[in-house]
């Protein structure tokens, strides 16, 4: 819908959703095209924006031991924020969640994305929508996914660190890479906090044993 307003035909939108499949990246392409950005700069920005998938793909990869190359290729192509969040949670909490269930989730999300963006292109060609609202829909989605990640206090702290850092770095660097740097640093803070918590627990466990 936003892409249509940026001057890409409905066919182009369908092609982009099929080949690229990056919601946030496509939203960004739309806003950059509208702002008159050049093709190379949009591609570079898409790369940085998608670096988060490098981290997501790395974290979910251990669940895909001994899968065939075509399976991995298809799964990688259809990996996205939403299906990743769902699959990762399922893999960790549900013993029966298989790699096939994960791929099915991906394919469902993928096909509905392709269809709905084409539909959006048609709707966009018929109506005018407010860009602030359209962009905020994405943010509301991210907020919900963020909240679903708050499984313990450490995760809330890490979220706050990442958020504050991202704003500071955005101001300093004025570039989307700030998000990647903020996420890497904040998750390392989370790692350190978790290590400290484990050490503390181990120490408490010992003192209890000593008392007995």
């Amino acid at each position, binding site marked *: 819908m936003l892409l249509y307003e940026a001057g890409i035909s409905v066919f182009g939108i369908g092609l982009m959703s099929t080949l690229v499949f990056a919601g946030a990246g496509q939203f960004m392409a739309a806003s950059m095209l509208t702002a008159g950005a050049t093709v190379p700069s949009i591609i570079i920005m898409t790369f940085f924006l998608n670096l988060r998938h490098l981290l997501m793909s790395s974290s979910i990869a251990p669940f895909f031991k001994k*899968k065939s190359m075509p399976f991995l290729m298809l799964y990688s192509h259809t990996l996205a924020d939403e299906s990743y969040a769902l699959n990762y949670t399922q893999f960790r909490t549900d013993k029966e969640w298989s790699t096939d269930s994960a791929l099915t989730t991906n394919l469902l999300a993928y096909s509905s994305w392709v269809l709905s963006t084409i539909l959006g292109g048609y709707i966009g060609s018929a109506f005018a929508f407010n860009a602030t609202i359209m962009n905020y829909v994405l943010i*509301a989605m991210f907020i919900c996914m963020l909240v679903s990640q708050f499984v313990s206090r450490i995760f809330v702290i890490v979220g706050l660190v990442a958020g504050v850092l991202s704003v500071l770095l955005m101001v300093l660097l004025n570039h989307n890479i700030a998000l990647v740097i903020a996420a890497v640093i904040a*998750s390392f803070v989370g790692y350190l906090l978790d290590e400290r918590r484990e050490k503390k627990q181990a120490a408490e466990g010992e003192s209890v044993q000593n008392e007995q």
Partner: protein
Amino acid sequence: MNSSIVILILGMAVVTYLPRFVPMLVLSNRKVPEKLVKWMSFIPVSIFSALVFSDVFFWNSEVNVHPLENVKLLPTLLVFYIAYKTQNLLWSMAFGILGISVMILFTSI
């Protein structure tokens, strides 16, 4: 269709695919060190938080914490509350649209 649009789409396709596929290829058949797994467990929360914060605190490309100028601030509090209460993506998006629409209407009066 314009040829630069075709190049844009193909370029975006490549830079989207590589970061997703390479880790799958390298890490899926290998044992990943426990420390790395622990570090990576904090990546999603960091990414989503960075995406949200770096968007909602900016208005016209500048940090703006004035709740009546930056119309995204108040709806964000609402969406956080709804997301926390319902844990539901669709409700969060619906209240997000509602909240931001009300703010845009309110500030345009």
